[in-house]
């Protein structure tokens, strides 16, 4: 009974919470009026948009997801220095390349997250996904060893995502 | 010390804005120009933030947020335009 009630009137609880938090952050206040307005928005907007949702794989382990996010942040920080060195260094030695990366994960959201991670970690930009979602094409700024790069992306980013979404 | 740093960093960002402008004018292809515009708006966000720091006012963050959103949408729209134009041909 309670379950059916919440599913009817609170279809996206996590998104409602995020919406509420972002509203308070945007207004930078904890005034009663804004809390009320934020609550109305956080309850009302999911009711309007929940029919448009397409089914997505659920996050299995929130702890793993958090660890993944922290790892990506760390990688962005560390590896940015590498790209900075490349930009200052001699252009003649650059060895750019297009690489096709075979995908093991499926589903729109996990592939999007993997592609965004690849774009944000320096040295690689994801360019296109093949129509059957089996291949991800990436452009590499400086390629030394293709097999090693693919293996690194697979073990460092794809395997944790696979565990997080369980697909 | 802080005000000196703000002026120095503003100068750095102004130099990068000029670099973006050169890339915007030189091209050679359309995606290059869009990329230059994209970088231009991100750098201008930095400049606005520094101005807010210089004035000691948090009001400028609203405009920075607005520019960030509008800039992303316009980049996406321009890319879509390029993609669609090619498909129709």
């Amino acid at each position, binding site marked *: 009974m309670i379950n059916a009630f919440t599913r009817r009137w609170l279809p996206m609880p996590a998104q409602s919470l995020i919406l509420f938090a972002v509203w308070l952050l945007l207004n*930078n206040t904890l005034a009663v009026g804004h809390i009320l307005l934020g609550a109305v928005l956080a309850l009302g907007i999911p009711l309007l948009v929940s029919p448009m949702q397409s089914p997505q794989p659920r996050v299995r382990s929130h702890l793993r997801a958090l660890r993944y996010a922290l790892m990506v942040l760390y990688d962005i920080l560390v590896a940015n220095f590498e790209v900075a060195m490349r930009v200052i260094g001699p252009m003649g030695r650059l060895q*750019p390349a297009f690489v096709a990366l075979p995908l093991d994960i499926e589903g729109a959201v996990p592939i999007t997250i993997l592609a965004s991670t690849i774009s*944000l970690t320096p040295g690689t930009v994801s360019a296109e996904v093949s129509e059957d979602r089996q291949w991800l094409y990436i452009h590499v700024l400086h390629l030394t060893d293709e097999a090693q790069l693919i293996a690194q992306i697979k073990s460092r980013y794809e395997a944790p995502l696979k565990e997080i979404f369980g697909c | 010390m802080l005000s000196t740093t703000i002026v120095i960093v503003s100068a750095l960002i102004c130099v990068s804005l000029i670099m973006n402008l050169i890339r915007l004018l030189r091209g050679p292809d359309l995606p290059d120009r869009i990329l230059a515009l994209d970088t231009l708006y991100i750098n201008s966000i930095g400049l606005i933030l520094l101005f807010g720091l210089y004035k000691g006012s948090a009001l400028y963050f609203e405009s920075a947020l607005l520019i960030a959103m509008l800039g992303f949408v316009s980049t996406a729209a321009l890319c879509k335009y390029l993609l669609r134009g090619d498909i129709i041909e």
Partner: protein
Amino acid sequence: MPPVIELIICAFLLLGGIFVLLGSFGLLRLPDFFTRLHAPTKATTLGLAGLLIGSMIYFFAVEQRLVVHELLITLFLLITAPVSAHMLAKAALHQKVRALKRTQGQALCNAVRKRQPPPADN
């Protein structure tokens, strides 16, 4: 404001400024579009994150209240930067922008344009 905090803020601002400069420098200097794509999407995003963290510390130290707009802007930029980079790469591939001559794996470009799997010998 204690000098230590001022020093920290200055360090963040300088780091941010330098990375923004490097991103734009890369945009100007790198030889072809696809390599150019690398510099602004990453270095500039990181640079801006540095600036934003610096200003967040400043307002926290001076006004004694948490200004969290910066966090929102940083998050927003972190989410949108790879998306716009991806769209730009896609647009460039479909526009047949020429890549640098020594780029490896250019045979893939045709397959990428049609969104097909790579040719078998690759």
